[in-house]
């Protein structure tokens, strides 16, 4: 029994028989019997064919593993057509009477060597892209078909020195139980594929190919990156048990994917997800989110030299709204300042940035910046169910001023004959004690509340949680915080408006029963927390918990609150 170690990509155990994918051996003839022009024509035809085949591959990949994988092959088309490459190949053909295959091999190898000598993972990745393109072009020139693992019929673990995107396109996860390669790391194509398709992989295992034969039995432990070759029966049993447990846990969650979020006694709740960029949308939908409860828009403003234009913002909001197909998308307006800086905006030096010039305060001061975002949001509202959420509210005045600006923008858009949702909902993030205490007033003039618990806890307990000396005081179980949450939900009910929560507390299993008892309408959590949260909610009874709310609110210390809630869930 041998053990090898690499980088595990998914934290799961898998096992099976080895199928070795040998590297394509290219037999090339150097000298050509054709004229230079004929060889150049063969090369151009091969490039055309390459483009057609790649386009088919992209379609297939998009269906199975998503956009990112497809963009790799799109990059291949760009590289194959690259004028430096095309010119160099043509020159090589013109200078001596060699075959197109030979010229392609030489030119691509030269470029690949240049990249692999750069000692940078991203660059050496490009070297393997070039080798992949080279092999495919030569196969096309020779009229041969590439061996692909998508044609395998028997379940196996594919072991190879490297896997190229073209070899992995269209693979079937019911057949391929795992992938192990000698090269690659966390950012390689194979890693991305493994994550997108949920195929376990262990990459970067040195000497792998000399350690395994076809038909060997191997266990892959993605957590530790271990590969155990031909293990004893005891070891197999042990790992089978682990694997079964992992599968059970996953199956349990999959049951909840397409279910409604509903308590044991039939109360329907809304379970949304939080996102930071449109890239998070697929994982949100894959996990069965019923909407976006918090779309942070800061990414649009960061890592760039200037403010994003209305058009750029509009495209992003529209993309998310359309992807959600009518499900609610709550978009938080710019929440900059505090610890989030912008390189092109001059923030004043402040002693207390968290108590300073940030979020809605900047937006209402620099209305020209705010209006660009509002226009983009309103325009995008014509393409889905967008709701606007204002951060850092401390009084009614900010809501009124923001709504005045929204009305101004609506008028402008109407004049310009641009479509938008006239009844777009405008709500607030309840994340300051001032807002939480006065939710009875604020609720009269907005359409929804969303509790932002991270800031609410920080401002209520007056604790910077990065400060080790006092960070233990930062806790949602503080009775003051608990009462502010309760007050907010109660006042939402009195005003007949929707109330949700988008902070970390919404996915805290000890807090969820309390929130259900209060009557919170919506929980917005990180994508991976959606299914466990839905499962937990389905096991709780609103009627029973409602009876306990007052008792919980009467508890006198954080410890009492925590112990009570902990007992509640283990009952």
């Amino acid at each position: 029994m041998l053990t090898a170690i690499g980088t595990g990509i998914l934290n799961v155990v898998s096992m099976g028989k080895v199928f070795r994918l040998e590297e394509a051996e290219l037999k090339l003839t150097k000298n050509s019997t054709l004229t230079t022009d004929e060889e150049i024509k063969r090369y151009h035809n091969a490039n055309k064919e390459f483009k057609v085949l790649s386009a088919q591959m992209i379609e297939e990949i998009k269906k199975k593993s998503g956009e990112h994988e497809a963009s790799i092959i799109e990059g291949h088309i760009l590289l194959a057509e690259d004028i430096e490459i095309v010119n160099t190949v043509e020159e090589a053909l013109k200078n001596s009477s060699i075959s197109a295959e030979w010229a392609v091999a030489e030119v691509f190898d030269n470029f690949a060597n240049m990249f692999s000598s750069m000692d940078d993972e991203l660059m050496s990745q490009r070297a393997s892209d070039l080798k992949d393109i080279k092999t495919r072009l030569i196969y096309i020139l020779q009229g041969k078909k590439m061996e692909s693992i998508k044609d395998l019929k028997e379940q196996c673990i594919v072991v190879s020195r490297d896997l190229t995107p073209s070899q992995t396109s269209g693979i079937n996860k019911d057949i391929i139980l795992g992938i192990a390669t000698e090269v690659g790391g966390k950012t390689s194509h194979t890693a991305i594929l493994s994550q997108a398709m949920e195929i376990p992989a262990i990459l970067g295992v040195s000497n792998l190919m000399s350690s395994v034969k076809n038909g060997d039995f191997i266990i892959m432990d993605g957590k530790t990156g271990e590969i155990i070759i031909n293990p004893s029966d005891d070891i197999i049993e042990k790992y089978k048990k682990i694997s079964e447990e992992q599968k059970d846990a996953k199956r349990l969650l999959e049951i909840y994917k397409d279910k409604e979020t509903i308590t044991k006694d039939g109360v329907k709740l809304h379970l949304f997800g939080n996102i930071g960029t449109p890239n998070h949308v697929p994982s949100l939908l894959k996990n069965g989110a019923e909407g976006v409860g918090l779309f942070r828009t800061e990414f649009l403003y960061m890592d760039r030299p200037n403010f994003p234009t209305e058009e750029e913002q509009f495209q992003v909001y529209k993309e998310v709204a359309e992807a959600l197909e009518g499900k609610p998308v709550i978009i938080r307006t710019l929440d900059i300042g505090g610890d989030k800086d912008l390189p092109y905006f001059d923030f004043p030096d402040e002693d207390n940035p968290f108590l300073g010039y940030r979020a809605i305060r900047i937006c209402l001061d620099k209305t020209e910046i705010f209006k660009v975002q509002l226009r983009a949001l309103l325009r995008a509202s014509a393409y889905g169910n967008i709701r606007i959420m204002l951060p850092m509210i401390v009084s009614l005045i900010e809501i009124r001023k923001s709504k005045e600006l929204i009305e101004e923008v609506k008028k402008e858009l109407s004049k310009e004959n641009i479509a938008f949702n006239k009844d777009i909902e405008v709500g607030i993030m309840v994340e300051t004690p001032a807002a939480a205490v006065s939710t009875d007033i604020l609720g009269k003039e907005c359409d929804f509340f969303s509790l932002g618990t991270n800031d609410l806890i920080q401002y209520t307990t007056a604790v910077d949680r990065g400060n080790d000396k006092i960070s233990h005081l930062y806790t949602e179980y503080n009775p003051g915080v608990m009462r502010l949450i309760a007050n907010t939900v109660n006042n939402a009910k009195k005003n007949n408006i929707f109330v949700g929560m988008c902070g970390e507390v919404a996915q805290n299993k000890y807090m969820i029963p309390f929130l259900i008892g209060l009557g919170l309408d919506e929980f917005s959590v990180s994508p991976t927390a959606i299914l466990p949260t839905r499962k937990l909610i389905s096991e709780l009874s609103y009627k029973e918990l409602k009876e306990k709310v007052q008792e919980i609110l009467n508890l006198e210390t954080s410890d009492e609150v925590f112990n009570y809630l902990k007992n509640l869930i283990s009952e």
Partner: protein
Amino acid sequence: MLKKSFVIENKQGLHVRPAGVLVKAIKDFDSSIKINHNDKIIEAKSLLGIMGACIKCGDTIEFQVDGSDENEAMKAIEEVIESGLGE
């Protein structure tokens, strides 16, 4: 011929993705488009050329555009760089 300099703000420099976004945006113009990077002239329509130049965050690059559609091409370059090259 038009010339204009830009400072690259992409954190990892012009690696594959941003370079790809740039090439896609300009490759169909008829004008010749070159980049001057530390006095080396690079073919801007070539993904390989750009990646091989190892342009880092904070580097200044000068675009040299020459041809019948040079105004449109320069405008496209400005737009795509200002948009952050897809990042």
